[in-house]
C-alpha cells in the first residue's frame, strides 16, 4: 500500500496580531499507520511550524481538551484516526468559545460560567459526619447519575449547536445535561421549582430548538436527546404548576 500525502488546511489566528485577518494555512504530511490527529498535529508543530497552537492533554479521549471542527464535524482530535479521513483535511477551532489562537479555544472559562450559573454542585442541608456510614443509594441510581456525569465538557455539542452560535447566554446540551445529573441525584435537595429557576428559560431547556447536532456529535456518546427531553418534560410540569 502506498503512503498517502495528507494536506491539512488549518485555521490560523494569532491574538497577538489583532489586525491580521484569520487565514487558512496548508501543511503536507506523509501518513503513518495508526496516525491520529494528535500525532499529526504534534509532528506539524515539531517539524514544520513551531508557532501552531492547539490543545491536547490526555490524548486518550478522556479529558475533553481537543475538540475541534474536523472537516466540519465537531469532535475530539485525539481519537480521530487519519485513515478515516480524506486526503484533504480541514481543521478549524470550535465556534462559540473564545479563540486563544489557531485551534485553541477557551472551553474552560465557558464551562465554568455555566457551572456557576446552573449551580452545578450537590445542594444539601446535611452536614458530613466523618464517623457515620455513608448514605445508601441503589446501584441503578448511581449508574444513572454517572451516565450524565460522564460529560467531559469538550464543547463539541456547544460548537455544533446553531442556537449556541447566536445566543451567548444559551447553556446548550452540556449545560442541560449537567443539570440533569443533579436532578437524578437524590443527595441534591433542590426542588423542581428551584431547577426551573436555573433551566426553565430560553437560556436553558426552552432555548433548545431540537437541532440535535449535540446528540449526533457527542464524542463519548452521551444520549443527549434523551437527557434534554427528560429535563424538558420535568421543567414543563414544573412550569405548569408554577
Amino acid at each position, binding site marked *: 500500500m502506498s503512503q498517502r500525502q495528507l494536506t491539512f488546511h488549518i485555521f490560523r489566528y494569532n491574538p497577538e496580531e489583532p489586525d491580521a485577518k484569520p487565514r487558512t494555512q496548508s501543511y503536507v504530511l506523509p501518513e503513518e499507520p495508526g496516525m491520529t490527529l494528535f500525532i499529526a498535529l504534534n509532528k506539524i508543530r515539531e517539524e514544520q511550524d513551531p508557532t501552531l497552537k492547539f490543545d491536547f492533554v490526555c490524548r486518550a479521549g478522556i479529558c475533553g481538551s481537543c475538540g475541534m*471542527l474536523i472537516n*466540519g*464535524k*465537531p469532535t475530539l482530535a485525539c481519537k480521530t484516526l487519519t485513515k478515516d479521513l480524506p486526503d484533504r483535511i480541514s481543521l*478549524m477551532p470550535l*465556534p462559540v468559545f473564545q479563540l486563544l489562537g489557531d485551534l485553541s479555544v477557551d472551553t474552560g472559562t465557558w464551562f465554568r460560567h455555566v457551572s456557576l450559573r446552573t449551580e452545578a454542585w450537590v445542594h444539601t442541608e446535611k452536614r458530613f459526619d466523618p464517623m457515620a456510614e455513608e448514605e445508601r443509594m441503589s446501584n441503578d441510581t448511581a449508574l444513572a447519575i454517572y451516565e450524565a456525569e460522564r460529560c467531559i465538557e469538550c464543547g463539541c455539542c456547544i460548537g*455544533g449547536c*446553531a442556537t449556541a*452560535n*447566536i445566543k451567548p447566554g444559551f447553556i446548550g446540551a452540556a449545560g442541560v445535561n449537567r443539570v440533569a445529573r443533579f436532578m437524578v441525584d437524590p443527595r441534591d435537595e433542590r426542588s423542581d421549582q428551584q431547577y*426551573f*429557576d436555573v433551566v*426553565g*428559560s*430560553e437560556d436553558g431547556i*426552552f*432555548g*433548545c*430548538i*431540537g*437541532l*440535535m*447536532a449535540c*446528540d*449526533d*456529535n457527542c464524542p463519548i456518546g452521551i444520549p443527549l*436527546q*434523551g437527557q*434534554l*427531553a*427528560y429535563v*424538558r*418534560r420535568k*421543567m*414543563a410540569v414544573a*412550569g*405548569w404548576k*408554577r
Partner: protein
Amino acid sequence: MQLQRALTPGNKTDFLVEAAQTVSGLLLVGFLWTHMLFVASILLGIQAFDALAHFMERFRLLDLAVIFIILTVATHVGAVLRRIPGRWQEQKIVWKHAAIIRHPDTWSWLFQAVTGSAMLLLIIIHVFVVVYVGIDATLSADRVHSWMLGFYIVLLFLAEYHASVGLYRTLVKWGFVKRHSLKRVLTVITVCTIGLGLLSLWAFYSLGG
C-alpha cells in the same frame, strides 16, 4: 437570586411561549393532514367532494375551520418568530455554521424556517381564495387550469415538508421516540401525503377547465 428575578417571581413566559408553539404546531399538522384527506375525496368523484364541501358549509364547519386556522397560524407565527435569527449578523452566522458543520438536522431546520416564512404568504392567499370563492369541485378544477396550479404544487410541498420536519422536531424535543426510526416513518408519511395531494391535483386537472 437577582433583584429582577425576585421582583418577578415565577416567570414562566418562556415555557408558555414554547408550549404555545408546540401545541399550535401539532394542531396545524393535524389540520393539514385532515385537510389533505378531505381534498383527496375528489378521487372518489365530484359528487363525493361536493357533498363533503356542502356538508361543511351547511354546519358552518368551514367558517370554524377558517377561524381556527387564522388563530392557530397567528399563534404559531407569533411563537416561532423568536426563533428566526433577527439580526443580519445572526443570519450570516447560522447559514455559515450550517455550511461548515454539514449536519442534516441543522439544514432541515433552516429549510423549516424558510418554508415557514414562504408558507405564511401562500396560506393567506389560499385562505382568502377559499373564503371569497367557497369550495366547489368545478371552481377548483378551473383554478388548477390557471397559474394557480403552480401555486398549489408549491404550497403542497412547502406545507408537507414544514409539517413533517416540525412534527419530527417536536417529538424529538419532548422525547419518547427513537430519532432515526421516527425520521423514517415521517418520511414515508410525507411522501404519501404529497402523493395524495398530487393525485388530487391531477384529478381536478383532469376534470377540465
